[in-house]
């Protein structure tokens, strides 16, 4: 074994606030070999990011490094003078963060910013040479047409492309260590998988060591040979990633592992009960008109939802999954009747919502409720909790005493402390806030609850608690749920039937087991393949992972809208836009080609 490139010993970082000292990083020691990828996992608040910043001495009050050594390439970073430090930071050690948009100047062209960065850390490089190097790296991270995009401003880049730019920014000075702090967190699952694959390829060709930080062990496991597990500032366990995942020694690691929801192994797919149709969505279309830039009166059509149809039955959990920009949010707004569809119809309990009078629509609203994603913005700030939960009852004309009684019942039912009744929502946790939202929806005794990423702001423990609550409520009141989510594991656990959306259209609609084990549409397979998991993935990256990004919903390609990324597109895909075709078992997929052969050899 060669000398480690980075050796950290007894590193300690304190937080000083109002005279109290809190230890954030506690006596951390580890070493990193050249070219190695070291994972660092731990839940939010365990001190991962502070540790990452301490490694490059980017620590400012109230934080303070109190002990330890960080030896990088034979020198202690913590005792370097500022000039020597500047030669290491950003030059020998690169950094990629979770917020690429915030790290770039919005006014300057991307390429120019990176050239400037490179020349500031390596002044001996000439302008032309720096430019060539940046262009070369743009090609290596597979940014299409690098020389054109070199001159574009940050806002013209998508999240995934921006993260590639940040990777170039970190790697362009040819560092021997790159710290990657939660880089896949803001990205969609297929794009995140692309980025992981990209980094995997790059480090093999560059021989750069990576410290790969994430809150999710499956994400880390895709890249890292060794992994550190961090809890409350301490490294509680370290070892080979595969071993850590297979036999964890520490209880904390076991807890982390037990919170990862299973996808294929030991899952009980919930089975549907057959009830009457509660919600019937029929060929719904929604198009937005956006003024074209640089013109006075020309509009672009953004086709957000294009002919979506499905039915939700009583007592059923229906899932809608897809990446950002696929039209999920628009569909949510349509389902909750916050917006009216341009075409098609949405019928609730057999009544077409567009034909209802204002009065009967208000009456109808009692029976379908929407739970929003953001637990912070969705509650009025200046209202006591009990009054907030009474609100829906007061709207629908209950008297105050009755409303107060039912609101109190609802508070108990969703597990809110009765003594919170007269408090303002300030200071409540995200989970408690979502419970308030659930209580508000619950008091009206609805038939259908639409959950728009309702759980995505919560941590795993809170999520699990709320899912139990949902199950309990369903058993008591017979609710139907529509889960709108990008989280496949959640959908796998809760939903009876699932629709996969791509560019405003449902490309596959199938029951839980079929969708996860024998999916028909190539996009569904790509989604499953991109999912970070410790289990053996039935859909290996090499075969199923997609390249590129979805086309813009403003100018959709002719024919099948998925064909630009489809691994098995054929000539007829360019001409025919496939409708949802019926498959065996009441499932549907929008693909012209039957892939019996491929379906057969899913691993």
């Amino acid at each position, binding site marked *: 074994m060669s000398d480690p490139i980075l050796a950290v010993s007894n590193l300690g970082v304190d937080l000083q606030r109002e005279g109290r000292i809190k230890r954030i990083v506690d006596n951390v020691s580890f070493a990193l070999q050249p070219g190695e990828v070291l994972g660092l996992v731990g839940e939010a608040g365990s001190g991962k990011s502070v540790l990452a910043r301490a490694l490059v001495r980017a620590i400012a009050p109230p934080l303070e490094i109190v002990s330890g050594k960080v030896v990088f390439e034979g020198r202690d970073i913590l005792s370097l003078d500022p000039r020597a430090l500047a030669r290491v930071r950003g030059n020998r050690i690169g950094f990629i963060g979770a917020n690429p948009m915030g790290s770039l100047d919005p006014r300057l062209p991307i390429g120019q910013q990176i050239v400037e960065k490179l020349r500031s850390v390596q002044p001996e490089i000439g302008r032309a040479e720096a430019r060539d190097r940046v262009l070369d790296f743009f090609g290596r991270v597979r940014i299409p047409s690098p020389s054109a995009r070199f001159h574009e401003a940050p806002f013209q880049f998508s999240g995934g492309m921006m993260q590639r730019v940040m990777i170039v920014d970190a790697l362009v000075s040819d560092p021997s260590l790159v710290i990657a702090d939660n880089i896949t967190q803001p990205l969609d699952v297929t794009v995140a998988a692309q980025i992981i694959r990209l980094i995997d390829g790059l480090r093999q060709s560059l021989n750069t060591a990576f410290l790969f930080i994430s809150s999710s062990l499956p994400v880390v496991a895709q890249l890292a040979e060794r992994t550190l597990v961090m809890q409350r500032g301490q490294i509680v366990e370290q070892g080979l990633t595969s071993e850590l995942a297979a036999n964890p020694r520490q209880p904390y690691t076991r807890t982390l592992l037990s919170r990862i929801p299973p996808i294929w192994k030991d899952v009980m797919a919930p089975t549907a009960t057959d009830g009457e149709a509660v919600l019937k969505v029929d060929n719904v279309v929604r198009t937005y008109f956006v003024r074209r830039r640089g013109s006075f009166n020309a509009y672009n059509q953004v086709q957000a939802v294009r002919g979506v149809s499905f039915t939700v039955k009583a007592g059923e959990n229906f899932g809608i999954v897809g990446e950002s920009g696929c039209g999920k949010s628009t569909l949510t707004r349509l389902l909750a009747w916050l917006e009216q569809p341009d075409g098609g119809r949405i019928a609730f309990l057999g009544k077409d919502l567009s034909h209802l009078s204002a009065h009967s629509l208000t009456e109808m*609203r009692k029976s379908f*409720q929407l739970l929003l994603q953001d637990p912070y913005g969705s509650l009025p700030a200046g209202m006591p909790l009990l009054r907030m939960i009474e609100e829906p009852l007061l709207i629908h004309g209950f008297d105050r005493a009755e409303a107060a009684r039912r609101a109190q019942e609802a508070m108990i039912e969703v597990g809110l402390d009765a003594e919170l009744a007269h408090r303002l929502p300030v200071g409540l946790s995200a989970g408690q806030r979502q419970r308030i939202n659930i209580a508000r929806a619950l008091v009206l005794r609805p038939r259908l609850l639409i959950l728009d990423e309702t759980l995505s702001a919560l941590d795993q423990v809170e999520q699990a608690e709320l899912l139990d609550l949902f199950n309990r409520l369903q058993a008591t009141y017979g609710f139907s749920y529509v889960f709108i989510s990008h989280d496949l594991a959640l959908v796998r656990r809760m939903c009876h039937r699932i629709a996969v959306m791509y560019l405003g259209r449902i490309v596959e609609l199938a029951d839980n087991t079929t969708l996860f084990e024998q999916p028909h549409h190539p996009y569904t397979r790509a989604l499953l393949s991109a999912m970070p998991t410790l289990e053996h993935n039935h859909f290996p990256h090499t075969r199923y992972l997609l390249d590129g990004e979805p086309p813009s919903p403003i100018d959709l390609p002719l024919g099948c809208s998925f064909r630009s990324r489809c691994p098995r597109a054929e000539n007829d895909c360019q001409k025919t836009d496939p409708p949802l075709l019926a498959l065996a078992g009441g499932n549907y997929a929008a693909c012209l080609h039957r892939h019996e052969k491929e379906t057969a050899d899913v691993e």
Partner: protein
Amino acid sequence: MSDIVQQGAAPRTVARRGLTPTRRMLQIAVGRMDFRIGFVGFVLLVGLSFLLPLISPIDPIKIAYSSKLLPPFPAEGWRWPYLLGTDQLGRDVLMRCLVGLRYSLLIGLTTVILMFIVGCSLGLYAGFRGGWVDAVIMRLTDAQLSIPMIILAITILGVSRPTVPAIILVLGLSGWPLYARVARSVALGERNRGYVLGERVLGASDLRIMVLFVAPVVLPPIAFVAVLDIARMMIFESILGFLGLGVQPPTPTFGNVIADARKYLLNAWWIATMPGLFMLVSLTCLNLMGSALERARNAVLRGEA
């Protein structure tokens, strides 16, 4: 010792949690020193201006040449009961100032209430509804803002008689667009917030959402600025009075007293200075209260109390 303190502390926090946010805000504001100073000063001045002219035998408009141009209290030659001296016609400066303050406060307060109600309701409606409603109301404010206040005052007060309601009308007309604009801009931001969507889903009507949910968010910051605006309106009232467009003599107001006293500034400085001093003190008190209220509100919304 220490458990006594804890026992005392626990029930108090519970009791404080039961209070409404507005009550808590007032509580915090009252606890602040600047609010207390402002409040005490303001109450003293208001009490004086309303009570003293009632109980004092001195008539603020009665002319007495025998006692003209008497200097104020510590200076040589002053005479009881003319504490702040007398003017060129022998009228008591203190009494004239108090009556002027009375008019000033009356006009300032009424104007601000009027502007606040008209401006905020129009602005809130425009911002919340959007579309052509918004366009029409905003073009109205543009039109109003393009007319300078003084021109408007000369036109209206010059054509009709400058009575108190007319002055309030002029000041209110020139001031409401500002309130409409601010209310609209905040309401625009609130329109698509989660809690508004949540209310819509629950089935609440637009009016209910606006009055019950958007207004409590949008209005308090504007209301606190409005307290500061009372001071501004009092200044405008004296400007009108100074130009001769305010409440007409012989009724004394800050404006017309100062305007008349200009000629005597060199040998009887107190006639013009005293009304200015009264204005300074009352405006300072108002501003102290206004800023303390705003800080208290911020503290409550940040969850510090």
